[in-house]
């Protein structure tokens, strides 16, 4: 089907000297921001509340109109487009989710495709496909939002944003309102999903750890959305531009580096023949492995392909390797 999930790949977003001034305020809310958000990447805007990160994001889909500057997506100046038409090409996910409570899940997800004139059968197929993609059972299509938990609702929110297969997604603290365990689940699922869909994603958060986890690149913002540093998570951890950025990283920078490193990217030792060793899934991070080692009092863990006791063992990880990884020697993140 042409409308398959990986249909439209991401497009590059470019902001040039984008400024937002509200009348009657001396300081601009956003001052002369310029940045390139490469196609297919997740760029996280991180900064304290009130720094203008959400304003910056909302200027991309023009829920807030910039006072000056230009914004292009895939080379097209978005300010020349009809705002409603423009927004139909941008997925939008917000912290409060904003599902339509009077509509069934299928109608929440299918609303935009229907308005775009898709046939009934195509909409139904798309809804089924998206529910599967975000890990919800197919029969949830007939439910109403209030019959879902918060985490499930946000999955629907993500599915709804992907419905018309937009090249660009804007996500404003999408997992901010969920409990830590659900948030971790949603983050992991979202990263898995993004590996499939390869959209260009602008992700706003005030949580630096979330930024490290989610971002291909991170823009650390000062007040008025002034960019303090814009780089990969690894580069920011290795060399924070200044004290402001360093204060965001906070304590435990080494552990945070380990949290960026997936076990699948680390060279594993062959599995020892002894039984009873703690097991960890290859999707987990080196930090998770270290945590397991400390918790179990073992300096070696088995890395498995999947959850469960009968999952295939891919190899083992030793404490020595973890320490090497912290020093930046192991793996190729």
């Amino acid at each position: 089907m042409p409308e398959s999930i990986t249909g439209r790949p991401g497009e590059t977003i470019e902001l040039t000297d984008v400024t937002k001034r509200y009348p009657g305020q001396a300081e601009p809310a956003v001052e002369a921001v310029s940045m390139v958000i490469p196609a297919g990447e997740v760029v996280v805007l991180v900064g304290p509340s009130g720094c203008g990160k959400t304003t910056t994001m909302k200027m991309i889909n023009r829920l807030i109109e910039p006072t000056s500057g230009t914004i292009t997506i895939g080379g097209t100046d978005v300010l020349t487009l009809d705002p409603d038409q423009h927004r139909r090409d941008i997925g939008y996910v917000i912290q409060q989710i904003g599902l339509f409570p009077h509509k069934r899940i299928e109608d929440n997800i299918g609303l935009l495709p229907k308005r775009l004139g898709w046939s009934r059968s195509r909409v139904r197929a798309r809804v089924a496909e998206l529910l599967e993609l975000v890990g919800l059972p197919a029969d949830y299509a007939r439910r109403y939002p209030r019959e879902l938990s918060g985490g499930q609702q946000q999955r629907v929110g993500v599915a709804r944003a992907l419905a018309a297969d937009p090249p660009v997604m804007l996500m404003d603290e999408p997992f901010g309102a969920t409990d830590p365990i659900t948030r971790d689940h949603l983050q992991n699922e979202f990263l898995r999903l993004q590996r499939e869909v390869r959209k260009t994603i602008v992700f706003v958060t005030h949580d630096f750890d979330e930024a490290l986890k989610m971002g291909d690149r991170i823009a650390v913002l000062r007040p008025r959305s002034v960019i303090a540093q814009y780089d990969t998570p690894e580069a920011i951890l290795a060399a924070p531009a200044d004290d402001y950025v360093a204060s965001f990283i906070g304590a435990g920078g080494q552990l945070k580096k380990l949290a960026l490193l997936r076990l699948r990217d680390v060279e594993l030792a062959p599995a020892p023949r002894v039984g009873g060793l703690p097991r960890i899934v290859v999707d987990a991070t080196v930090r998770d492995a270290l945590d397991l080692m400390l918790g179990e009092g073992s300096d070696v863990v088995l890395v498995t392909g999947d959850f469960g006791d009968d999952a295939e063992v891919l190899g083992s990880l030793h404490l020595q390797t973890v320490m090497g990884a912290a020093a930046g020697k192991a793996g190729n993140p």
Partner: protein
Amino acid sequence: MTFAEYVRENWITIVNDTILHFDVTLGAVAIAVVIGVGLGMLTYRHSTLAALATTTTGAFLTIPSVALLGVLIAPFGLGVLPVLVALVVYALLPITRNTIVGLQEVDPAVVEAGRGMGLSRTRVLWDLRLPLAWPVIFAGVRVSTQIIIGIAAIGAWVQGPGLGNQIFNGLGRFGGANSLNQVLTGTLGIVVLALLFDLALAGVARLTTSRGLRA
């Protein structure tokens, strides 16, 4: 003659009056819904206009019904028309006010999500705000109905239709044969009609409200 005998002998007139009473109330509520919901949709976004709409329709409700009906004789003559107009005027406040409140109190996140996916303001109003405000609006419709079903009785004073005729006939020759029975019939008829009407409206509310909004 006992009350029961009176009802038994005059049941055709009584049923007739009841149906007419129901008709004029339903007609007035229907017109008031169109005007009140329309007024609410036009004003809910501007706090001054919204306040103006509520105060004006609120002021209508304070006009004594006899005075309003009397004034309406000049343009509309006697009969059903002045009664209908007066009832519409009295029904406006609850419907208008509940429409404004209902539309204003829709979860801003829902509106933002709608705008963010490229729905126009008009589409957001019709597809999101109105259906979500509907239970509140309909609560206003029910209050309006209860208010005007009683006032409709006064309509008999300008030769309007309905159970008011029983009451006015009885009062006009109070002490005469069956006069008390007439007043009782009119009054009890209106009370029973009001109860049944509200029951029916509760059913309509249930049918017209999305299952996703029911608690």
